[in-house]
């Protein structure tokens, strides 16, 4: 695949140019943190951002999304009929997606785009979007993407991968969608072949800057029953306050809630992100709750990511190693530690192996 070199000047010009064809999203610094935002005229994505506080999942899958509208006006013919909102998506491009966040989209796709039923809201937004990734030259302390099926230069889920080298950027198109994005930006300068070895150096340096690794190889062969009854869940859940932060910041969490909201005589049906950490998530109208206790909810979240998903789709874990839940958890619950415990748990002796990772 040919590599395109983008200097600072053509970078700014190219971004402005694609804005006429795409709605362009990129990381922008707001107060202390970076967030993905729709870029306005002359606004540039900040490529020096380590990573955004929240993942770009809300661009494809908004936190609150209106699906239907209805009227409760008895005098109208369409009273009490659900009308689907228009769901046409103009092309979007997300610039500066880190490889971990990019891998989250193919993972979430397995749920929303399953062979038996397709979620049109998610799929249309996903298909309209070009993912322009940015390789990581240095890792955060909480990153463990190399253990989660990707890496700082990972390409899965991306249409274009950009690599920053000092002031210069190199862009590599991965899909046809990415190719047309590069054309729309008008970036044509091919990089010299010497750059390849430079990129390999950057890649090796980036990979070695990741200092946590987690083994997940043994989880698959353990039975649900033995992990489910493991004693460490209560220990791990002791500090948990069921705030749901981990699920909201997670790029691969997809659970939602459907609610009707009425204003006067008209209303909307929308779906909102929900969290398995909340007791009401599974609370039945009858009063029965299958996950009534805190540790059961914590167990559900980690078992879903590291065991149920693995069993259901046989395609790696439902975690991309971005480390957001570790950074933002108010009580320092660490998925790496839980993963290690699950992986090394021995049901016979009821202990996790002593070898530390």
């Amino acid at each position, binding site marked *: 695949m040919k590599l395109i070199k983008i200097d600072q000047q053509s970078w700014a010009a190219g971004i402005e140019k694609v804005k006429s064809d795409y709605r362009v999203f990129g990381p922008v610094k707001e107060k202390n943190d970076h967030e993905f935002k729709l870029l306005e005229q002359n606004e540039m994505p900040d490529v020096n951002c380590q990573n955004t506080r929240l993942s770009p999942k809300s661009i494809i899958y908004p936190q609150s999304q209106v699906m239907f509208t209805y009227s409760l006006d008895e005098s109208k013919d369409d009273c*009490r009929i659900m009308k689907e909102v228009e769901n046409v998506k103009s092309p979007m491009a997300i610039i500066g997606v880190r490889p971990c966040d990019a891998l989250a989209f193919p993972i979430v796709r397995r749920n929303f785009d399953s062979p038996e039923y397709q979620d049109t809201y998610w799929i249309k937004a996903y298909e309209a979007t070009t993912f322009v990734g940015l390789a990581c030259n240095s890792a955060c302390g909480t990153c463990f993407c190399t253990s989660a099926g990707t890496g700082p230069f990972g390409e899965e889920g991306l249409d274009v991968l950009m690599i920053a080298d000092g002031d210069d950027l190199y862009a590599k198109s991965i899909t046809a969608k990415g190719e047309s994005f590069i054309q729309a930006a008008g970036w044509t300068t091919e990089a010299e072949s010497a750059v390849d070895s430079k990129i390999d150096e950057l890649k090796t340096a980036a990979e070695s800057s990741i200092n946590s690794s987690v083994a997940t190889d043994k989880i698959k062969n353990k*039975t649900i*029953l033995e992990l489910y009854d493991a004693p460490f869940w209560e220990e791990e859940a002791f500090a948990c306050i069921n705030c749901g932060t981990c699920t909201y910041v997670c790029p691969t969490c997809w659970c*939602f*809630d*459907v609610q009707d909201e009425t204003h006067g005589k008209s209303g909307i049906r929308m779906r909102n992100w*929900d969290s398995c950490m909340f007791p009401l998530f599974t609370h039945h109208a009858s009063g029965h709750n*299958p996950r009534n206790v805190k540790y059961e909810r914590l167990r559900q979240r980690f078992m879903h990511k590291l065991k*149920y998903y693995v069993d259901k789709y046989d395609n790696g874990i439902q975690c991309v190693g971005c480390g957001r839940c570790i950074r933002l958890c108010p009580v320092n619950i660490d998925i790496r530690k839980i993963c290690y415990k699950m992986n090394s748990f021995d049901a016979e002796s009821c202990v996790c192996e002593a070898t530390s990772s």
Partner: protein
Amino acid sequence: MKKIMQSYDIRHETDMVEPLDFNRRSRLKDVDRCFKAEITNVIRLTDMEKLFQIRMVNDKDWERFTFLPGQFVMLELPGYGEIPISFSSSPSIRSTIELCIRKAGKVTQALHKAKRGAIVGLRGPFGTYFPMEPMKGNNILLIAGGLGLAPLRAPISFVIENRADFKEVHILYGAKDPSQLLFDYQYEEWHRIDDINLEVIVEQPDKSWIGPVGLITKLLDDIQITPDETYAIVCGPPIMFKFVCKRLSEMGVPMQRMFVSLERRMHCGVGKCCRCNIGSTYTCLDGPVFDFWTVMNLKEAI
């Protein structure tokens, strides 16, 4: 898990039952359509439960809308929400469907205020069903506790309509007290049918109660069946499954021949919102009807 499996395999190796047919999944594309329906009758069953008779506004919708005992439908009340409700009527009745609904949450409270002629939406049907066809030629135990009679009424109707295909039929129903008994006007009818054994038990009798008193498992004490030729359908609160199915197991009924209908909170019905999952199993797609063997291997199921 392997150890448990082995011990049961030895006993039931020879009479493995056909797995549930999950073909419903291939028809899922039909379910995003919401049918406009009208409440034609509201029948008060107890203080808490009402039976709603519902008819499609458009006659042609009936052609697409067929269901099987044990499946459920999403009942939609714009402005309040959507709820999963099991069918309480026989699938062969093509004029109306009947849904027995307890006043419990936001939608059901609004629904209990609804009058004849109110318009609702129906989406579905969803989920797996009781495998009535393979049950033919066998004895059948239909066991319900409390509100469990609502989903059980569909297979009861099926069995009554096809009485000749079944050997012994026992309908066992238990409730907390006589005022909570559902469909009490039908017991007389079921009772009069030749060769159907209907037993009703309450836990806390009132002065006028002359029937048996105790828990549902007590009714099983008097039943003599050939376990190898018996199927059981059990509907009720999760706690009931444990005791009833344990008792049935002691009587020798294979776990793969006991079917239960699980209750879960659901929002989408198509396996997307992840609310009803039990491990990697989605109750809306792989359930709500499971054989008890599967339930025993699903942690958190009951």
